[in-house]
């Protein structure tokens, strides 16, 4: 009797062990969808392209991709119909951004304003994630150099090449708050090697603000403002304010905007903007971006 019980006990144990997977079976198939949060969920497309309007956004071009950019700013609107609201004049920049890696970009460009050549190096060191224990922001460091190649105003002076140079360093911090809304803060330092007089500072501090709101999957409204902290610039200087649209058509992004700035490079639009919005001293402009793969 005792032996039979023991044998039965073992038999039953074995049977139960064998049947274990099938007992779980009912949950097994629905278990498929359980551990999805484990995949790290990087936020993509905080902005449509790597510029908000004038300034850089936290977006970078991917490795081995070249983003060719043509930027135009026309003349001021308030000159009326004679100039066709500014379309008779234009300043432009041609250039491009290249992805060394997905996070490290370099770029060059040439603008008609002050015949400026510019270059930059841009590194994304933080990427926003969507997980619960997530990184709440994306962040980028970017350093620009600009070379003014106009003929010297006073050729008889001892002019040094370094006097042509100006630098801009920025920290870009952005967050995609929802599918439609993203915002960015850009603390900025502009350094000019040469200034007009002793009283003028070589270093100028500014804080940029940018935001975008999606109105259709392929169109966004953008706003960008650079606040230069007081007592650094001339009395007639203005802060650059730009409002525009991004229209994305697959390989291209068209950015159409109104701005009170002229120059399409950082030192120019942050420290040399003179136009006032309330005087109608604003310009229509556009950027066309086209990405090529290598």
């Amino acid at each position, binding site marked *: 009797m005792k032996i039979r019980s023991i044998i039965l006990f073992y038999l039953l144990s074995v*049977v139960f062990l064998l049947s274990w*997977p099938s007992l779980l079976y009912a949950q097994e198939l629905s278990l498929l969808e359980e551990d999805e949060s484990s995949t790290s969920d990087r936020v*993509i497309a905080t902005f449509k392209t790597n510029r908000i309007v004038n300034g850089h956004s936290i977006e970078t071009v*991917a490795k081995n991709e070249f983003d060719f950019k043509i930027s135009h700013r026309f003349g001021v609107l308030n000159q009326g119909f004679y100039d066709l609201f500014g379309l008779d004049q234009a300043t432009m920049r041609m250039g491009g951004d290249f992805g060394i890696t997905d996070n490290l970009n370099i770029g060059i460009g040439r603008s008609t304003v002050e015949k400026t050549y510019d270059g930059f190096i841009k590194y994304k060191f933080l990427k926003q994630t969507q997980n619960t224990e997530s990184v709440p922001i994306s962040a980028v460091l970017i350093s620009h150099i600009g070379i003014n190649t106009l003929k010297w105003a006073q050729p008889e002076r001892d002019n040094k090449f370094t006097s042509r140079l100006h630098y801009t360093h920025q920290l870009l911090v952005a967050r995609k708050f929802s599918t439609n809304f993203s915002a960015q803060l850009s603390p900025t330092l502009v350094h000019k090697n040469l200034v007009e007089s002793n009283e003028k500072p070589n270093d100028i501090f500014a804080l940029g603000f940018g935001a975008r709101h999606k109105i259709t999957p392929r169109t966004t409204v953008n706003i960008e403002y650079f606040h230069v902290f007081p007592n650094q610039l001339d009395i007639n200087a203005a802060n650059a304010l730009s409002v525009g649209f991004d229209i994305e058509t*697959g390989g291209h992004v068209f950015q159409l905007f109104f701005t009170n700035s002229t120059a399409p490079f950082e030192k120019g639009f942050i420290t040399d903007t003179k136009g006032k919005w309330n005087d109608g001293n604003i310009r229509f402009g556009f950027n066309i971006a086209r990405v090529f793969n290598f």
Partner: protein
Amino acid sequence: MKKTIIYSLLFTIATAFTTHSGGIYKTNTGNINFYSHTPVEDITADNHKVKTAFSAENGKIQFSCLIKDFEFKKALMQEHFNENYMESTTYPKATFDGTISSISTIDLGKDGTYTSPVVGKLTIKDVTKDVTTLGTFTVKNGLVNAKATFNLNPYDYNVSIPKMVAPKISDSIKISIDIDYTHQH
């Protein structure tokens, strides 16, 4: 004697369960490829993180994959796929829930190649449609490879395509499935 009866009863119950233990075949690293061919442009992407399982005894089969796990050669295309076409933050997953119709003809204990219709419901962007295809099951050393292809029309699944881009995107996108299942114990 009483004990014996109880044990026998338990035994019977237990055996009732075990008769169904054909087992589950499963993986988290299945492959799905899609291929859109038009005269203007060919577009293709792969997802290597497909979760899927099937039951050897009743032929139930399920798939689940994250839209954002589809990898494209061009980063920008991948962004547009997620942002504009699939809206993957709103509709993160695609799922399939179906049956291997002739599971009984597939001998998972014996190496060989078997075919069976697979019928079920495919859900993309919250739109569910019936899908039928022919699955090829290759059994080798206890592992099961399953392959199938079928075509779908993106317009059926609430994917909006602007007129300007429409010539670049096929209305019959080929879906290829290639899964290596392992037996779960």
